[in-house]
């Protein structure tokens, strides 16, 4: 990895010939240059600043030139609980190999360990962040890469901690292979477009593992969102692609695998939802395709409000969920087909592996509690299971057209 960064730095030299003859500045207690900031001040665009191991208390380091700042042996940058540690205010900056700890804590100025201001083509990689308010913060940035960083914080309350990786009004960002723990939201996007979030672990954050709003045409691939206070929230966006992510252990009163609100033209495929209070909660979703996902041991696998239209749920596996599907109202404009439901009790006479009678994934009791929430006190009572059994035989209360006409007899291989 380290060599790749040097290679990047080398590429920079090739691409920008005007800074040929670039210099390398060494910083450390054994060198004349003891301060990183002063090295930056002396450097020119295209220079490299090599920082030796040690602990640096420099209040705030502002990188306002297109330089490569590399830590050797994980030098520690300490913000003493007061400052924003690194501010990147130039294009093409590479910042890599540091341990950053103890940023200031203030909700007005949003201090971060690393903040990118209005700069494109910035790379922040292989850093370790410990006890930070915001972790890595990007605003008005394009085509930047945030990669392989490890962010740990120790927030106790949502209001007193910032987000792990926070991007605002940015475009074409790459967030890859980061691990984020203990922040408010693990990854936060607002007005971020055409970006990719790949192979991150966002675990045990106070609010959402991933949270984005007004962020269109982004792709989320192979991430793990687990044990976050409220799961993942996705709102007011279109063109969202979520593939092969794992959403698990988001268990609590208002926790979701994913909360989808006002989402359209999106694809949610190949994901796994394990042990969430609600696997997916959808409100005002349009033209969303749910395909080849696995829902395991969730309270509700899916909760689809009547405000959703043209949602297609097909070829998913449902195992051991307390309720498969919940909805409010009786209007259903969504399609279910070819899913495997472990609660399906039908038969397959012609042996085409598709059940001959439709499956109704919505139980009578889930309709009742939607209409009358206090009825929840009858949860798990004998009467409720009897009601559900009766409803299966003679459907009367559950929405007539909410059914899977072609339920699979066997779990699909996903």
């Amino acid at each position, binding site marked *: 990895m380290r060599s790749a960064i040097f290679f990047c730095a080398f590429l920079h030299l090739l691409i920008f010939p005007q800074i040929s003859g670039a210099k390398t500045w060494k910083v450390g207690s054994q060198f004349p240059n003891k301060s990183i900031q002063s090295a930056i001040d002396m450097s020119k665009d295209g220079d490299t600043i090599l920082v030796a191991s040690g602990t640096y208390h420099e209040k705030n380091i502002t990188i306002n030139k297109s330089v490569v700042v590399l830590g050797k042996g994980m030098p520690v940058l300490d913000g003493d609980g007061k400052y924003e540690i690194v501010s990147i205010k130039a294009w093409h900056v590479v910042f890599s190999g540091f341990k950053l700890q103890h940023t200031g804590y203030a909700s007005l100025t949003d201090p971060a360990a690393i903040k990118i201001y209005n700069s494109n083509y910035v790379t922040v990689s292989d850093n370790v962040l410990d006890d930070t308010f915001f972790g890595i913060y990007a605003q008005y940035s394009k085509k930047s890469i945030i990669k392989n960083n490890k962010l740990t914080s120790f927030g106790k309350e949502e209001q007193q901690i910032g987000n792990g990786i926070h991007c605002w009004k940015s475009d074409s960002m790459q967030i890859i292979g980061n691990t984020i723990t203990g922040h408010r939201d693990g990854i936060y996007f607002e007005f971020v477009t055409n970006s990719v979030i790949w192979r991150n672990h966002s675990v045990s954050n106070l609010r959402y593992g991933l949270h984005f709003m007004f962020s269109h045409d982004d792709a989320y691939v192979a991430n793990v969102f687990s044990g976050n206070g409220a799961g993942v929230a996705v709102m007011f966006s279109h063109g969202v692609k979520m593939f092969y992510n794992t959403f698990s252990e988001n*268990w*609590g*009163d208002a*926790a979701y695998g994913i909360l989808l609100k006002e989402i359209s033209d999106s694809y949610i495929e190949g994901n796994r939802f394990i042990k969430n*209070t609600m696997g997916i909660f959808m409100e005002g979703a349009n033209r969303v395709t749910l395909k080849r996902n696995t829902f395991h*041991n969730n*309270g*509700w696998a899916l909760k689809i409000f009547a405000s959703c239209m043209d949602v297609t749920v097909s070829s998913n596996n449902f195992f*051991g969920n*307390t*309720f498969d599907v919940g909805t409010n109202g009786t209007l259903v404009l969504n399609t279910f087909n070819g899913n495997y439901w472990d609660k399906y009790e039908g038969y397959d006479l012609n042996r085409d592996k598709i059940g001959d009678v439709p499956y109704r994934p919505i139980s009578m009791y889930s309709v*009742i*509690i939607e*209409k*009358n*929430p*206090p*009825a*929840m*006190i*009858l*949860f*798990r*009572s*004998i*009467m*409720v*299971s*009897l009601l559900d059994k009766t409803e299966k035989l003679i459907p009367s209360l559950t929405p007539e057209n909410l059914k899977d006409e072609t339920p699979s007899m066997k779990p699909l291989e996903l």
Partner: protein
Amino acid sequence: MNKVIKYVIIDILRSKIVLAYTLLLLIISFSVFSLEGNSTKGLLSLLNLILFIVPLVSIIFSTIYIYNSAEFIELLVSQPLKRKNIWSSLFSGLSVSLSLAFLVGTGLPIMFYEPSATGYVMVLVGCFLSVIFVGIAMLASVINRDKAKGIGAAILIWLYFALIFDGLVLFLLFQLSDYPLEKPMMIISGLNPIDLSRITVLLRLDESALMGYTGAVFKDFFGTNIGFITTLISLIIWILIPFAISLRRFKHKDL
């Protein structure tokens, strides 16, 4: 008095029914735990079974036992023994043996697979249910002279607590859906020992997250120590009142 208890217990334990009940519980508990990979989930499945089987077996077995012991009771009454002692001994004997059957049948597997506070609360609640329904059975059998009527009454009572009561609650909820009913529901749930037991255990399980606002309101009260103690007191009242009434009737009963 203790002597009569001793003989009642010996008599009950000798009958194959309690043994069969113990075995049934053992088989069910072990298979539930081994089928469910997750032992908390096993606990949940077991909860449903306990709420169904324990009251049913307790009430039916006790009712039949009292009727079948009519002559034995007659014999005891003609002996120099207080009626109160005879009746209390029968009650204690039935309670101890059925609780013992439950403890062995369910307590052992729970101790083995899920030795958590929730597990123990469930064992406790099961014992309470056993004893409560012994008391109710004794009331049903002291009121009805006729055995068939008495057993019929016992089944109806069970049906009421297991099913009809919840149906009425649901009906009430829909009739009064314009009012906030969470708090009154807490009192109403105290009117049915099965519901009370179910809620007490359920709130200690992860599943309670599904119960939303209602669950939260309940948890606020039942989740605290005071709530737990209140639950225990209500369950104790559920033991004492039916038994006390049955004792009063028995004292003046012609045999």
